[in-house]
């Protein structure tokens, strides 16, 4: 496989306030994110030559890219919509980068937008996948909850110990989210609150589950040799990895619910392209897919942040906390920033982008002198995983 390391850069980004945006339509959210990105990059709609849209939920036949074309009046250019579960925005971003690296376009937009709060119900609904009967009652928490008991069993944790272990991830992400103005939730929680919260899909309780939010995030991407005309502090794409696995691992013989090939493959590809040998040491900050606390735990170990079965030590030592060796989900993560499915990958990338520029909105949230950051989304489990590694120095 080839590489596009350092060939493209992000020169502008925008991100809406996430949350229950009753007042804002899908179009309003897209406008809010896109115009912040235009301003940040110093461009306007006339500079955009192509656009990749991440949007996961839509009517049955879909709406293609026309919502974005009409909202932003980006008519007359290619607009490509991507839907790939929770990696939707990441893949829109990566496809946009590949197109720019090809030399075909100078400046393009990747935008993710999701309006979940127009459905009239608090969750994502029941039933996922393809089969109306086999998957009729499948839900997101029910799907990820299946990981937990296998993890507890494999590593000899009692239900109580396991619940406390993942609960600490919720405490960390809530603490991070409390400092993040654009996050959906700003409340700090104690471990006691987390473990005693109402159960959603045992052992996952309310605070083990991310927010169901509205939001949008946007990136303006250009070739690395053109960044000079935009800004002094562009952020380069160092590497990416995408790996598709099964929609129904439930049926795969031997699947152990702890080792996820999509996570391992996508991170390995991204590390290789970025030239990272030891992610635990070399990465300075990471935004990973904490749709549920158990997911973040699985990611630590499948991404090589922690050795297999040893994430507990890193969680207990605060290695992934703000100020730790590798701060993870420093903006609160999906857990507190919120998870408008098709926007999340770009929102995470927005945080890494700002961190690498030293421009976190509050100084206490700023990681000291970061060079390399990772953003990641994971649909499933374990359908698909997408990783982007960004750096503030061109190699």
């Amino acid at each position, binding site marked *: 496989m080839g590489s596009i390391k350092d060939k493209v850069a992000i020169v502008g980004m925008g991100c809406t306030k996430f949350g229950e945006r009753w007042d804002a339509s899908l179009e309003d959210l897209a406008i809010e994110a896109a115009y912040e990105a235009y301003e940040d990059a110093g461009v306007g709609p006339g500079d955009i030559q192509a656009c990749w849209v991440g949007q996961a939920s839509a009517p049955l036949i879909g709406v293609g890219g026309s919502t974005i074309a009409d909202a932003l009046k980006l008519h007359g250019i290619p607009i490509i919509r991507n839907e790939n579960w929770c990696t939707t925005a990441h893949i829109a971003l990566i496809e946009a980068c590949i197109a720019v690296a090809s030399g075909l376009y100078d400046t393009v937009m990747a935008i993710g937008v999701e309006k979940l709060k127009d459905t009239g119900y*608090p969750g994502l609904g*029941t039933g996922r996948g393809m089969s109306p009967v086999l998957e009729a009652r*499948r839900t997101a928490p029910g799907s990820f909850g299946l990981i937990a008991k296998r993890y507890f069993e494999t590593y000899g944790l009692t239900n109580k110990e396991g619940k406390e272990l993942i609960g600490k991830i919720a405490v960390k992400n809530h603490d991070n989210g409390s400092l993040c103005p654009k996050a959906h939730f700003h409340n700090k929680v104690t471990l006691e609150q987390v473990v005693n919260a109402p159960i959603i899909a045992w052992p996952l309780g309310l605070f083990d589950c991310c927010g169901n939010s509205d939001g949008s995030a946007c990136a303006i991407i250009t070739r690395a040799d053109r960044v000079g005309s935009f800004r002094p502090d562009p952020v380069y794409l160092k590497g990416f990895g995408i790996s598709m696995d099964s929609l129904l691992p439930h049926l795969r*013989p031997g699947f152990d619910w702890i080792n996820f090939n999509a996570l391992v493959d996508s991170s390995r590809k991204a590390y290789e392209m970025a030239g990272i040998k030891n992610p635990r040491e070399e990465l300075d900050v990471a935004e990973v897919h904490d749709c549920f606390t158990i997911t973040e735990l699985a990611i630590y170990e499948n991404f090589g942040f922690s050795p297999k079965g040893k994430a507990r030590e890193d969680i207990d030592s605060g290695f992934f906390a703000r100020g730790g060796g590798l701060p993870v989900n420093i903006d609160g993560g999906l857990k507190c920033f919120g998870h408008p499915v098709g926007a999340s990958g770009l929102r995470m990338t927005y945080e890494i982008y700002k961190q690498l520029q030293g421009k976190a909105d509050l100084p206490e949230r700023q990681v000291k002198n970061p060079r390399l950051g990772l953003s990641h989304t994971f649909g499933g489990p374990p359908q698909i995983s997408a990783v982007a590694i960004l750096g503030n120095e061109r190699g």
Partner: protein
Amino acid sequence: MLGIVSYGGYIPALRLERKLIADAWGGNSIGGERSVANNDEDSITMAVEAAVNCLNDRKREEIEGLFFASTTAPYQEKMSATLIATVLDLGRELTTADFANSLRAGTAMLKTAIGLVKSGSVRNMLVTTADCRLGYPKSDQEQAFGDGAAAILVGDKDPVATFEGSYSISNEMADVWRNPEDKFVKTWEGRFVLDEGYTAHMKEVVSGILKKYDLRPEDISKIILPAPNSRTHRSLAASLGFDVKTQVQDPLISNVGYCGTAQPLMMLAAALEAAKPGDVLLLAAYGDGADAMIFKVTDQIGKSINRCKMNTLLENKLMFPSYVRFLSYRGILEAQPSEPFRLFPSATVSWRERRSSLRCHASRCKKCGCMTFPVQRICYHCRSKDDYEEVRVSGMTGKVFTFTRDNLAGRSDDPIIIQTVAELESGLRFYAMMTDCDPDSVELGTPVELTFRRIYEGAGFHNYFWKLRPVRKGGTN
């Protein structure tokens, strides 16, 4: 030799203490408990349970016909027997029919099946029956009714009981009925129904068959008299000259209830389970007249087969917590809606997926042996294309590999869905919901088996699939 080759009953795991109904209305309990079909059960799924129990390890391709009798078939127009036959993985060359509209449909079906086998038209016929009738809320019937099913395999080889003769009378009266738009069973005045209807005709049909075959009550080992309530049952048996203590089959009223069309064959199944070679069984059933049949038990009865006995079914119970939930499960009371379904059923999808979703076929790769459900055209393991054989896995047992108790996925009146991944035989993985269990009792390694259930209503038709349930205590014999 013509007769009953095999038999099996089914009683839903849920039981409602009748006192809960009585207390809700400030009335009197008739005592005991009644069976209640779970919210994923209906007459079709219960008939499947009984049929699986009846067929046990028998080769499915040997079955030449399937009948279904019920007054509560899910469809007014569309055969239930064909669905049951498909779920049982029977062949396509099959005689099928539904019997309906009368509490006597069960025995009418049995009599017809016996006639067909006798005529040589088919060598065997699997007859299935199930009912889940509704009495008006507050009525005695609501307490007295139960839900259940039974299946009998009629054949001409190695019967456990030979068919010795029958006698039927037809009668027209509006004693018990339901109009197409009625949810609840309607009746005329009680004494008219019980005296002039039930008791008079049961007496006539039992006396008639005894006379026809020159028998006396003492020649009968067990008389099987399905009855709408215990008092009527006792007085009928006594008035016919049978010893209530030794000669009369338990009518299942106290612990199950009156299961309508299914009751005669459920009681027959229970009687056969306890029978000895040489026993003579007299079955009589009421409904718009009456049917009576005599069977003689053979020495095949002692053969050990893989069957869940009625006693085991009776013992495997989950007490239903409330009368309100019973009303909601039966659709009498509309509880708060749950989160909407996002996968929309389609008749074409259901039809294409029937091999897996109804017949419960997995694919076994001919190259590497990898087994997967549902059928996969390309092997998960070695990627061989279209090189597999189909294997029916509905009879398999296994263990819970992982699970979660999902509080978001269920109905608002039954919120917890146990999302379960089980490992069945040959490493086959099966993902399904767990049913008929206390959610807190499920653990990694819990032994499970498959059961056919109704999943939901959508696109205007009923959608069925398989679920897992903990292997029943007492198991099979």
